[in-house]
């Protein structure tokens, strides 16, 4: 078991380094950092001096090392667009994105999971078919379209909810939160639903299909043959077995919520890191792109690691085999 954890940790570090390499390549080789930072009248000598001072003439591995070391200390350089420290820009906006993602995740899980279980248990019932149809629509509509439609209906037409911005926020230390004001909470509603809808349908469909597969297994049949109650079979046996594979996928999906926030934040002018990233792509603001990449990479790696460990806790088959075999069947 320890061996497994160590192996995964090493893998994670390797992935992070790979991501770091990509970010570094971006940083160093796409566009010219010097040209982006100085004005038109800076002379060639001054540019050359600056280049030397910033270490841009050092061999590549040295530069890479510096890059990583800086990143580890939270120094991501200056934005090409605003000349502010990238780190500060990101930190300012992280709470917005995290709170939004959290709400979206709660929405997706809180509604998607029960809906999935229900449609898995009673697939022929008309309500189940209705949910299926709705889920198909949820998967087909791009996030931004959902956002726009919601804005059209609830903000522009009905004037119930705000159509952009974060509303009033409260500052606690370096964190700003939406949760403590009414206008903040109101502002969270539409974006959370928009962001969470796709994940909701994914979760619902996954749970449903897993549930249907589980219900056809031999051990469910044997459980019925032993005369166990429907409740025991559906919730004790079927649900538990369904959740095991659902955990991985859900965990990974939650990670991608943060990435998908890019679109939602743009639609709702939500001041999070996603919006920042889009602006950086539009303006070729490489330092911001690189920093975002690194951070997202770190996040995903952490999430993957946690999910793998969670698998261990939940599936007894993995514990005794030391995690080498990933048992695919039911």
């Amino acid at each position, binding site marked *: 078991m320890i061996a497994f954890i160590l192996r995964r940790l090493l893998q994670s570090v390797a992935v992070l380094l790979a991501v770091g390499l990509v970010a570094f390549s971006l940083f160093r080789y796409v566009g010219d950092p010097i040209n982006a930072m100085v004005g038109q009248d800076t002379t060639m000598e001054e540019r050359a001096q600056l280049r030397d001072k910033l270490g841009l003439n050092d061999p590549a591995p040295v530069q890479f090392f510096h890059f990583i070391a800086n990143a580890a200390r939270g120094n991501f350089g200056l934005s090409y667009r605003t000349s502010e420290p990238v780190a500060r820009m990101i930190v300012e906006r992280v709470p917005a994105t995290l709170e939004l993602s959290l709400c979206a995740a709660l929405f997706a899980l809180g509604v998607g999971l029960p809906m999935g279980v229900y449609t898995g248990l009673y697939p022929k019932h008309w309500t189940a078919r209705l949910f299926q149809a709705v889920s198909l629509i949820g998967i087909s509509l791009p996030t931004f379209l959902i956002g726009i439609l919601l804005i059209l209906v609830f903000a522009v037409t009905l004037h119930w909810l705000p159509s952009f911005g974060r509303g009033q926020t409260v500052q606690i230390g370096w964190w700003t939160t939406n949760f403590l004001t009414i206008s903040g909470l109101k502002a969270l509603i539409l974006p959370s639903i928009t962001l969470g809808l796709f994940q909701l349908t994914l979760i619902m469909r996954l749970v449903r299909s897993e549930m249907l597969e589980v219900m056809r297994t031999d051990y469910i049949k044997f459980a019925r043959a032993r005369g*166990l*109650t*429907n409740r025991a079979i559906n919730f004790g046996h079927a649900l538990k077995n369904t959740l095991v594979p659902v955990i991985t996928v859900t965990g990974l999906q939650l990670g991608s919520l943060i990435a998908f926030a890019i679109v939602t934040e743009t639609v709702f002018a939500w001041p999070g890191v996603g919006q920042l990233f889009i602006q950086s792509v539009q303006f070729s603001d490489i330092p911001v792109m690189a920093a975002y990449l690194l951070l997202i990479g770190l996040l995903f790696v952490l999430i993957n690691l946690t999910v793998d460990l969670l698998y261990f806790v939940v*599936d007894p088959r993995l514990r005794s085999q030391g995690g080498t075999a990933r048992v695919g069947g039911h």
Partner: protein
Amino acid sequence: MANASNNPPLLEVRNLRVEFPTRRGTLLAVDDVSFDIAPGEVLGVVGESGAGKSLTGNAIIGLLEPPGRIAAGEIRLEGRRIDNLPYEEMRKIRGARIGAIFQDPLTSLNPLYTVGRQLVETIQTHLPLGAAEARTRALDLLKEVGIPGAEARIDHYPHQFSGGMRQRVVIALALCASPRLIVADEPTTALDVSIQAQIIALLKKLCREHGTAVMLVTHDMGVIAETADRVAVMYAGRIAEIGPVRDVVKDAKHPYTKGLMGSIPSLGVRQERLTQIDGAMPRLTEIPRGCAFNPRCTRRGQRCLVERPELMAAGASRAACWLHDKGGVGAPIERERVDA
């Protein structure tokens, strides 16, 4: 329907029909099957794959998978009809009065729960026992089926047991609430040959001790010969022959059964060649008119092509074959070579 003892039969199956509606029409998988099982008796049900034996078993425990359904017939347990019961009523009977064992012990057990938990759950579903008493009973059952070190192993997960041990656990689970009848569907097919004998012996011993009747479904004639009191031979969804095991094995009355027996090699007997029955069992969509076996039968006559034989008396058994009818098979037919 005479059975060995004169007690009222435990299980009565009358004219059972199991159908599968498909887009190509309705398939008849079990066609007018009738038999009894006496209390404590072991009835073997033998036949090739697709003959309908598993489906008969599933129909009896009420777990036919849709779209399969019981189209006609009656099933009675201790005199009470069970084929038309609502799900909840049937659920109470399952496990408590009828148990079941399936083929693959690995997939029969939920991998996420310990063996003990699954036992206790089943016990508490049917018997009014507290947790501690249920656990004690579970331990006793594990010991009874021959799991060494039961005190420790009761908290192990299914994947920590070997195949033979797992099947013993499955048997323990089936016997939890002391059912009167167990439907065992190919209980040894998935096991190593060396383990098969152990499991069969265990099953036989336990059922004798508990007085449980067994419907033993299998394609392995050897197992039947060892274990069963009576045997029913199924072919194309029908019963070809049914009778005491010794009679059917030594002196089969139906040509199909004769062919089956002749195709089993036996040690110590000098045989020139094994019998081979030409052709193959017909698919459900192409069952011949008259006797289902007639295309492959060496002794058929005109009557066999046209009239379907019911089970009729043939010595100590009954066989569905016109050979045993006063009228005979009619004019014999030149047997052409049957191409497979």
